[in-house]
């Protein structure tokens, strides 16, 4: 079944699965136990931590394992409640794991400014500069947008934060494996990652916290993860996560060029087959293989259903809890009108997609839009 929804989640990499299976089978010890089984589990986690740190050029004590990218975001944002400066600057196109959290923690005194984006989905660094208040305690801006793939001008944004001495967080769950990522180059204070976005397991992610950056735990208990995230560690998940990170970084140029080729082929063919389509997002500054495309005159929910019948899996803007399509807030923020918004599909390619699959995707799209 051709799967083109890798921004939603990815199939697990066979090597990751093998790592997880072999660890699940044998190493059940609690990493906090001091006997041999516990010590083995501890060593698995610490070696995973070092592997991940090395892959993103961090130090091993800057990696905190979490249950998801969402949780990593939550730790950083809820942590604000303990600080004196409680104003946050974010962007209008963040994931609900940022925007809904900020709304939820308003009663704790947290206020926020959501910066608008341009027609391509980018935040303007000048806007950031102008929005800084005396009580701004955090800036949180995503690196790569999940719906249109646009990459924000991270270096310019982070430089502004630094010049004002304001900590900077970025939701980077859509970035790893699709664009080079080094914490040394970025120089952000906090970054959130999620395993299942890059062929790792679901239910495990991590937070990069620069040494010296302040953080208060959200989940309290037995003091795991240097007290930043209590709860017995998901040993096989963490091992799988580190294997997925390692593979993503090791193969990054190969993966990027494969995605670029698929994207190029798709865009070339679909532009001929359906000439009135519109591509959304930044033409240049975007991760490869993530395509937001509008089919004027067609409802995306109908297109999704017809593709589903053919066994083709893509997604549209945003689906709610009951699975129905609503106008995407991200496209709305980019100034795209509702009619186009509701005719938009997100196609996100992955490492296993082939040129043949892309060709058949185009011909199916062409068939169902020419009725």
């Amino acid at each position, binding site marked *: 079944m051709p799967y083109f929804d890798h921004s939603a989640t990815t199939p697990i990499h066979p090597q990751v699965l093998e790592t997880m299976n072999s660890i699940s089978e044998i190493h059940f010890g609690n990493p906090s136990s001091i006997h041999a089984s516990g010590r083995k589990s501890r060593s698995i986690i610490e070696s995973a931590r070092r592997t991940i740190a090395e892959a993103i050029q961090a130090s091993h004590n800057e990696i905190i394992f979490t249950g998801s990218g969402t949780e990593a975001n939550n730790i950083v944002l809820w942590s604000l409640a303990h600080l004196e400066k409680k104003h946050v600057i974010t962007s209008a196109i963040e994931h609900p794991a940022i925007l809904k959290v900020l709304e939820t923690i308003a009663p704790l005194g947290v206020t926020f400014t959501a910066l608008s984006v341009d027609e391509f989905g980018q935040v303007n660094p000048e806007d950031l500069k102008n929005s800084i208040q005396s009580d701004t305690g955090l800036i949180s801006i995503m690196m790569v947008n999940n719906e249109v793939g646009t990459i924000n001008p991270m270096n310019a944004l982070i430089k502004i934060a630094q010049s004002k001495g304001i900590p900077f967080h970025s939701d980077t769950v859509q970035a790893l494996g699709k664009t080079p990522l080094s914490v040394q180059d970025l120089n952000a204070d906090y970054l959130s990652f999620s395993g299942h976005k890059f062929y790792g397991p679901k239910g495990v992610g991590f937070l990069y916290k620069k040494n010296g950056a302040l953080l208060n735990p959200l989940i309290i208990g037995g003091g795991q993860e240097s007290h930043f995230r209590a709860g017995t560690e998901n040993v096989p998940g963490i091992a799988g996560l580190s294997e997925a990170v390692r593979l993503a970084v090791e193969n990054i140029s190969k993966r990027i060029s494969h995605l670029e080729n698929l994207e190029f082929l798709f865009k070339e063919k679909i532009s001929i087959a359906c000439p009135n389509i519109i591509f959304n997002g930044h033409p240049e500054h975007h991760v490869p293989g993530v395509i937001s495309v509008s089919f004027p005159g067609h409802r995306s*929910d109908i297109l999704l259903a*017809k593709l589903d019948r053919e066994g083709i899996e893509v997604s549209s803007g945003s689906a709610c809890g*009951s*699975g*129905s399509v609503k106008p995407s807030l991200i496209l709305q923020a980019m100034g795209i009108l509702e009619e186009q918004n509701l005719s938009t599909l997100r196609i996100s390619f992955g490492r296993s997609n082939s040129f043949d699959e892309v060709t058949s995707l185009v011909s199916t799209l062409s068939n169902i839009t020419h009725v």
Partner: protein
Amino acid sequence: MSNPIIVGISGGVDSSVTAMTLKKQGYNVECVFMKNWEGEDETCTSEQDYKDALAVCNHLNLPLRSVNFSKEYWNNVFQYFIDEYAKGRTPNPDVLCNREVKFKAFLDFALELGANKIATGHFARIVESDGLFQLLKGVDGDKDQSYFLYLLGQDALSKSMFPLGGIDKKNVRKLAESSGLINHAKKDSTGVCFIGEQKFFKKFLKKYIPTQPGNIHTIDGNPCGEHDGLMFYTMGQRKGLGIGGGHGDKEAPWFVADKDLENNILIVAQGHDHPALFHQKLEADQIHWISGSPPHALENISAKIRYRQMDQSCKITTLSTDRCTVKFDKPQFAIAPGQSIVFYKGDDCLGGAIIDNRN
């Protein structure tokens, strides 16, 4: 694969058995879940309903799609509902929901998906003779839902199926249970779908309409209490008047007999049999005939002025294509302006109209 029949599935037992029945009959079935209301308040159960629908579809190995009609519902049903309440009337949003959403927006959606017909879990029957589609009562008289469907026209009926119209409700549950559907014992939805239980009603209306408290008078003009706003009351209402006559009280209970909109006065009468609560004639407008034109004979007709009422013999006199008077053989209790009057000849649902006033 043949063109699909698209079943509107709600997560409830009726629409689930509808999908199952059609599948067993060999149709190519696809299911669509409609989300018609936005909001995360405690009364809205759509997320759980969707999960139930998904469980049923997975069990039956049927594809499930979702569609959001909350905009259509808001503009074409809810706005009317609020406007009517603001006028002190008692609207019926379900009849409009059927016309505007289920048998229009949803039907269009299904046709766009390539469907020949849609199917729903309504207890009613469609019969075609000589190219004319008739809407008949469901055979389970207690569950018959033709009352809610009287605004459908020939086009919608020609493209719809009601597979449960010939079954008893209790058999629907039995079928669901014997087939292992997880929702076989799920409670039927009651009340207005977007408000939920009756106890939330006042709170809900207050969110959308400014309240204007006023006085309660007896039918003879004597002040006897205060009301919270005329919109909260409907004709014949007994509960919640706060003027005695409750359970255990020796005095007979009070009932809403009328609303004086101009002076914002609620008028009540004492005793269920008080003549002020009964009317033999009403005037209705927005007439709709299912066949597309009025029946030849307007006598020997019966009508329901509320869902599940026994058929009442009456005579219709049309005043115009849009307006009619109806004279009942017997006086009717608590005729409520804004409600639908639905006309029948035997099992045949002929159409209906909206009650405007009574006299």
